[in-house]
């Protein structure tokens, strides 16, 4: 290797906005590496022969190869390695749970901190966006048409891979903007929307056609797409966007939101901006029910909209929070209050039908359940009231029934998830593939992207062998 290995046991820290500043604005929290920091961090990579990090990446990026290019200060070369495997590196570098994926397998992580793979990916993608203006060369068309339902991370990834192989790809998106959860769910301060738009523009430059305002199942069915529209294969990547509620009394009071509604108003409709045409409640005391990444996003948005007190209300303990550790730490730094081992049992309203508080019970952890997590058990006589004026339910989502109810012969399971044949994403219908949250239920951006990649390969094989 040409360069000296940097033996610092710790990751180069990433500059970020101060917690008490950033919790009043929607600007990006993490500011990203400088070129100097990136090169220094890249030199911590040992360039392992067996590349355990790569096996931890759902889209299989050749991580030592791209990091090696960064160490040599060949940032564009690094980008070319990244984009061979990932359609959305600027997104993944920001929102992947790297600690459970690539970085979780990094050899440097055994005796110190793993290499900051996500931060380096982000640096390279940002560097490319800021320095390279070439539009990608449109591949030679191969004469085949593929339709993709849903412009979220899974659909965008599949579209990118198929377009590079020469397919004429059309993505049908129900909302007025492409991006799925990247535009309506993940807030601006974690993932600036201009970056998402830039990555989508890159796909369009490859020739991908994105049709917005198209609710498949209503305006067109899958049978029509494969019939009169002449698509040889369809990839269903419609996600899991149907919110769950708890079913407790008072959930219809004014001031109770699903996290999806709250985040859609803020992110997609830009309700956080002064002068926005879409309204949002500016609350004083907010309870977010749930402990996942979506709950952290909703809580941090509420704080930024000016709420004085924001609670995360979760029925298990701090250890069991399903959100990424980094997100929990960021939320804590910003002043979010964690009320764990607490479960709401009723929303309380005033005479105008607005939320004035919620009744909760305390919980303790019992024996592990089927999933291996310790089951929360109610503590007797522990009911108490928490004064809040807004409640955001973030207890999960499930797939929307629109597609399954309008596609005869499409097998789904009892959770409403589309049933597929193993890794390649083939459904019970010939030529119809599915992946991402529509198959798994709510999961992560990168798993959805991985599924999109596998489905694209399977669709390619299917059409070539027809």
């Amino acid at each position, binding site marked *: 290797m040409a360069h000296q290995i940097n033996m610092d046991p710790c990751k180069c820290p990433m500059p970020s906005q101060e917690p008490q500043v950033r919790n009043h604005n929607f600007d990006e929290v993490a500011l990203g590496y400088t070129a100097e920091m990136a090169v220094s961090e890249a030199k911590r990579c040992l360039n392992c022969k067996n590349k355990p990090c790569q096996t931890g990446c759902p889209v299989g990026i050749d991580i030592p190869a791209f990091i090696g290019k960064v160490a040599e200060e060949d940032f564009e070369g690094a980008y070319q390695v990244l984009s061979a495997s990932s359609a959305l590196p600027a997104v993944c570098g920001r929102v992947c749970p790297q600690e459970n994926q690539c970085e979780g397998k990094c050899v440097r992580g055994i005796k110190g901190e793993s290499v900051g793979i996500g931060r380096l990916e982000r640096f390279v993608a940002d560097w490319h966006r800021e320095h390279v203006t070439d539009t990608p060369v449109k591949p030679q068309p191969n004469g085949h048409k593929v339709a993709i339902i849903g412009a979220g991370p899974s659909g965008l990834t599949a579209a990118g891979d198929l377009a590079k192989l020469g397919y004429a790809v059309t993505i049908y998106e129900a909302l007025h903007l492409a991006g799925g959860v990247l535009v309506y769910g993940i807030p601006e301060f974690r993932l600036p929307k201009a970056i998402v738009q830039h990555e989508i523009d890159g796909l369009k430059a490859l020739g991908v056609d994105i049709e917005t305002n198209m609710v498949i199942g209503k305006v067109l069915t899958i049978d029509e797409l494969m019939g009169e529209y002449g698509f040889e294969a369809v990839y269903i990547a419609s996600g899991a966007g149907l919110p769950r509620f708890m079913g407790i009394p008072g959930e219809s009071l004014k*001031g109770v939101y699903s996290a999806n509604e709250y985040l859609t108003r803020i992110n997609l409709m830009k309700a956080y901006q002064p002068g926005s045409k879409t309204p949002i409640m500016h609350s004083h005391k907010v309870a977010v029910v749930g402990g996942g990444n979506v709950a952290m996003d909703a809580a941090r948005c509420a704080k930024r909209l000016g709420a004085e007190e924001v609670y995360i209300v979760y029925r298990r303990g701090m250890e069991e929070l399903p959100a990424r550790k980094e997100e929990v730490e960021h939320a804590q730094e910003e002043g979010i209050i964690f009320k764990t081992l607490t479960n709401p049992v009723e929303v309380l309203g005033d005479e105008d039908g607005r939320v004035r508080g919620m009744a909760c019970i305390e919980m303790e952890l019992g024996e592990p359940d089927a999933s291996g997590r310790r089951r929360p058990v109610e503590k007797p006589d522990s009911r108490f009231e928490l004064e809040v004026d807004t409640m955001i339910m973030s207890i999960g989502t499930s797939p929307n029934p629109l597609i399954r109810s309008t596609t005869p012969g499409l097998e789904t399971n009892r959770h409403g998830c589309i049933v597929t044949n193993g890794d390649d994403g083939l459904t019970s219908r010939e030529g119809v593939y599915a992946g991402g949250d529509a198959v798994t239920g709510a999961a992560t951006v990168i798993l959805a992207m991985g599924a999109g990649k596998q489905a694209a390969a399977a669709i390619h094989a299917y059409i070539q062998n027809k």
Partner: protein
Amino acid sequence: MFRIAEKTPLNPTVTKMVIEAPLVAKKAQPGQFIIVRPFEDSERIPLTIADFDRQAGTITIIFQIVGGTTMELNQLEAGQSVHDFVGPLGRASELEGLKKVAVVGGGVGCAIAYPTAKRLHELGAEVHSIVGFRSKDLVILEQEFEAVSHHMAKMSDDGTWGEKGLVTNALEALIQAGNQYDEVIAIGPLIMMKFVCKLTEKYGIKTTVSMNPIMIDGTGMCGGCRLTVGGVTKFACVDGPDFDGHQVDFDEAMHRGSTYREFETHAREASCNLLNKEVQ
């Protein structure tokens, strides 16, 4: 972008627009709705499909100018385009097999009651229309209703058009006169639908209402439009907008409808200022 083929004011506050949206027109059925965004930075608002022409590829919407977004929409003229137009959304009304129906429309709700009455008429049902407005200058679709109704009761709050009184007065009179309806279909302000349901419950007549809660996406992903129907939470955009009126919690729906009242008042004033070119 979706081109506006026609724009006609029906009264000082209600506008009819015919919009070119061939794919939506191909699938639209009575009872379904669309979501429209007039401009790139506009809010998404739901409007029921008032009519459709599959051949011409157009959808007709009729809207009351009540706030910021409907004012924005009303600024657009024939030949211009709306930025986003999505549909058809929601479930179609179930009208097959009905023999004798009372269709009750209130105010701009008549824009939705009319296609229902028309469809029932086409299906061969005996249609009794009961339509109400605050006063004569707000009346819309009078001839259209007459053309598809066996009987039409015209009501106004101030007596300047038809008879003075509420639609419930006319409906009760018809019921007491011995008319036996398979179903009553009520479309209008929540308070009107609530009282129609109270009345028909007394007589044990099945009643369907078309609900109009706050919506954002209109595809079932946020639950902003949720209602309690028969004690169960339903999303109006995917499970409705039509529901069994005797099962709907109207008081809750009315409360939820007022969530953003202050914001909306401000938005309307801001839009008025824009129209008057008094922007600060």
